[in-house]
């Protein structure tokens, strides 16, 4: 299954860097060497094996934007699954940005009315004033500019985990039955007596699904920051994206010494965690707070659950 993902925004706002970080597994520092994108760069990213993300990284210079809105209009805006519009948090031409954004939104709603819209306020690390207030202000502005279209806004930076959070959410919308996955993860978590089970995509390490906290109802919450259940263990709400970021950095370090990352076992003072391959395209992380449970037992459980999840994954992408 193919999904077209439009990545648009002002020139120099960080679209190609994002792509490089998330999908090409380059460290954040290497993005400084990227050049300006000429016209549209298309990438096919295999996600979860069966899902292919067709990423359209569109150059943001005026000439290109004008052409997207006129001559290339239907080529660009048709058959879009998700549009991600990137704003530079530090831009000096906010009005021009907003104008172009509105035009692109128009184009999108005309040609792909069912597409989801995500707005990323990027380069948050450069923001001087208190980030949350700035972000809220921005979000309001963007809501207003978007009119009736439903949007989701994230504040992101390539230098911290926020980018993973945003992208995990985005990708999550593209997986049709994430809910089913979540349900199964919950069951699995119960079976392992685990506090939480998280399913990551193998290459990008974006979160695909998580188990619901056992204390709350089994509603599949995809967005980590919307879990309302009481967090008994006081887990960091940013743990998902932090994990993504950290594991990715570690993977990258491994590759620098020409080793491949396979699995991780952590036997800590207050919890045990096992990160291992689940299916061909996914990793699973099982977090257990019960001190009596051995990592080997967890690994055994993972192995036994593998088949089921492979089945599920085959179904989940849908036919």
């Amino acid at each position, binding site marked *: 299954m193919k999904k077209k993902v439009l990545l648009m925004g002002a020139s120099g706002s960080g679209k190609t860097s994002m792509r490089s970080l998330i999908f090409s597994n380059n460290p954040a520092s290497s993005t*400084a060497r990227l050049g*300006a994108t*000429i016209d549209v760069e298309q990438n096919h990213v295999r996600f979860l094996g069966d899902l292919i993300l067709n990423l359209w990284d569109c150059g943001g210079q*005026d*000439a290109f934007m*004008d052409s997207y809105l006129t*001559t290339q209009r239907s080529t660009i805006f048709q058959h879009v699954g998700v549009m991600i519009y990137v704003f530079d948090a530090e831009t000096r031409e906010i009005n*021009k940005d907003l104008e172009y954004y509105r*035009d692109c939104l128009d184009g999108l709603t005309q040609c792909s009315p069912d597409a989801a819209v995500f707005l990323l306020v990027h380069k948050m690390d450069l923001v001087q004033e208190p980030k949350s207030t700035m972000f809220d202000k921005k979000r309001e502005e963007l809501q207003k500019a978007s009119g009736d279209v439903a949007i989701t806004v994230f504040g992101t930076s390539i230098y911290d985990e926020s980018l993973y959070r945003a992208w995990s959410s985005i990708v999550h919308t593209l997986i049709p039955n994430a809910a089913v996955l979540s349900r199964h993860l919950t069951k699995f978590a119960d079976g392992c007596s685990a506090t939480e089970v998280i399913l990551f995509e193998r290459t990008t390490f974006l979160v695909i699904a998580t188990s619901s906290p056992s204390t709350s109802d089994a509603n599949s919450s995809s967005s980590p920051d919307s879990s309302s259940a009481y967090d008994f263990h006081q887990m960091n709400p940013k743990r998902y994206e932090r994990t993504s970021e950290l594991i990715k950095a570690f993977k990258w370090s491994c590759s620098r010494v020409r080793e491949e990352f396979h699995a991780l076992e952590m036997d800590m003072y207050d919890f045990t965690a096992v990160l291992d391959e689940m299916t061909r395209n996914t990793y699973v992380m099982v977090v257990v707070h019960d001190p009596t449970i051995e990592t080997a037992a967890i690994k055994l459980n993972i192995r036994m659950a593998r088949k089921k999840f492979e089945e599920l994954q085959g179904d989940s992408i849908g036919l």
Partner: protein
Amino acid sequence: MGTFLPRIQSVFYAGFDLTAGPKIICQVPEGLITAPSIPNSTVPPTPSSETSPSPSLPPLHVTASRNSSLSAVASPTEFRPSSRSFSSPQGKRLLPNNQAPLFNFEEISKYVIPGPALCGRLVICSTKNHRIIGLPSQLRGGKYQRNFFRFNLCFVFERTADLSCYEPIVRKISRVLASCEEESGFLSAPGNHAAMNAIIEQLYEDLNSYSETSISIDQFNSIELKIFPFYPNPPEVKDWMVPIMLINLVRRIEDNWDLTMAKVCRYIDGVNHVSRIAHLADCDIKLTREAISHLLYYQVIMTIDIFQYSNMYTLRKSIQWLADEAHVKDECGPYSTKPGFSIPDWPKLLHLYSRMKPGRTVLEWMEEYEVQELGIDVRRFTSFGVIKGFLRRVHRYPILVPGSRSLAQSPSDIQPNQNRKRGKSFTGIQPTLLNQSPESSPQGQYLLRGRTAHIVLAATSLSSEQATSAPPTPRGRMNQTAASVVEPDQPHIRPRRSSAAERILESLRSRDQNLTRPPGTAQASPRTSIFNADPSSVSTIVPVPSITTTASKPQENIPARNPRRQSLIPPITTTDVPPNSPNIPRLNLNSGSRPQLERSPSAPITRTYNGMAAKVAAVPLSYPMELLELLDGEHHTDELAVRFEAGWPLLEEWLSLISEGQNGRVLIIYR
């Protein structure tokens, strides 16, 4: 060849602006390409400082007001003055000469400033009426804000222009500008647009007016350009090619010419082949080849093939239209007719041309159509066709096929039939012949041979010259294989012509009966070369150069041939010594005058050959060992002849010798 250079319609310098994207930074003449030549500073302020129209307006309006620096019109493929003026509130759209803009930059921007894949490569793109040539460059550098600096200096021409001579110019300019940028940041420095403008203007003026220019960029760098007309590389010059002058070279020789060139030019007469020229001009063969190659490059000569009576020609497809061309019709007669004869009219000449086929040698053709009587100079006649391009030489490519030669002896009665039939048909009956023959190997040969069928007239080379009036003596093909029956029928051109295979068969049969030679013995000649008369000529034993030129009269030939044919059937037996009689006429012939000797490029060889023939002694003809290596079907007989200085008759001998000596067969492919 016309050497006019296409006119440059516009020169522009484009770059990648970090905010605006790909744009034309300067162009000359101004405004021809719809994008202003002035950088952003003079265009209306961007929307950030002006109230932008409400979002409800169609994007075009918004776009226009936002980016007047780019003419992003709704339909960039055609120029619309109204939309342009709309897009630029300043109304700065009056072109100096009131010329319409050529096209919109947006159409080609992705090829002028492309992605990394196309950078560093010559890119030519076309719009509806124009072609644009440029070499986009991408320079990496930490000092650049987005890590890369992109630029392209392009030339605009009419769409039909031939841009080959501008390619080196564009490459050089790009190289020089790139190194200027690397050294001193010339291009990326903010204030340099005026300098660039001046450079472009000078390029435009100088290249159009003088086809050369010298522009100094700064203290250390300059652009030196000169446009040379661009000719394609000439084909390789081979020793067996015959150059023919297209202009009078000798009159243009000057003192400062290269010595070899001056010497070589004097011997280019349309008859001498390259190695002969080298010999006559007393020049090194390699230098001679170089000189000819140069003349070919400048297209003042062209090459044709060595004229021999054993040549075969055929018409090409182009005859369909060339036959109607006035220059062909009018020039052929006067060119080909010998002085003192009335000039035949074009239909007659065309008819003669059409009678040339692969497998029919020139001599045979001459005989058949009484070309001599018409007073046509055959050499000029055939070279006219070759030069005009409607006649093509069919070369013989001998190939040594290894394998046992032990062909089963086919019953002689079958063979002769086949032979005879083959002789007749050579145009159509072969397939059936093939079917008939019990042996497969000879079939192959037959097939091959059949095509050439009329190679025969072996006499063509050498002998033909001597005996222009002599009927062509059939020369067999070299199909050695024992049973390879040769063509034998060549001599019977006339009978062959008749469609009645039976009739020919009958006549041949009757002739055969006249002969007393037993089938087996005749073998000698089987070499298929249907040398005139005697089978013997071919046979391995006797070297006698079978060349044939028998002076024979057709009747003599026929009988002579028959036995040969028969003998061909059975495996070659080297025992028989052919009767001498056929040789005698040959000898006589040899001694005869050779009026056209000088015509033959292989004349000298002929002489030698004749000398040999004169001996008639049973001196074994030994062939050079290198010849064996060359029998791979890739080298035609002209090439071999020139290389070993042996005429076709001698070559044929050798080939038959080889066939017998080596364990294999020599087949000849015609193409």
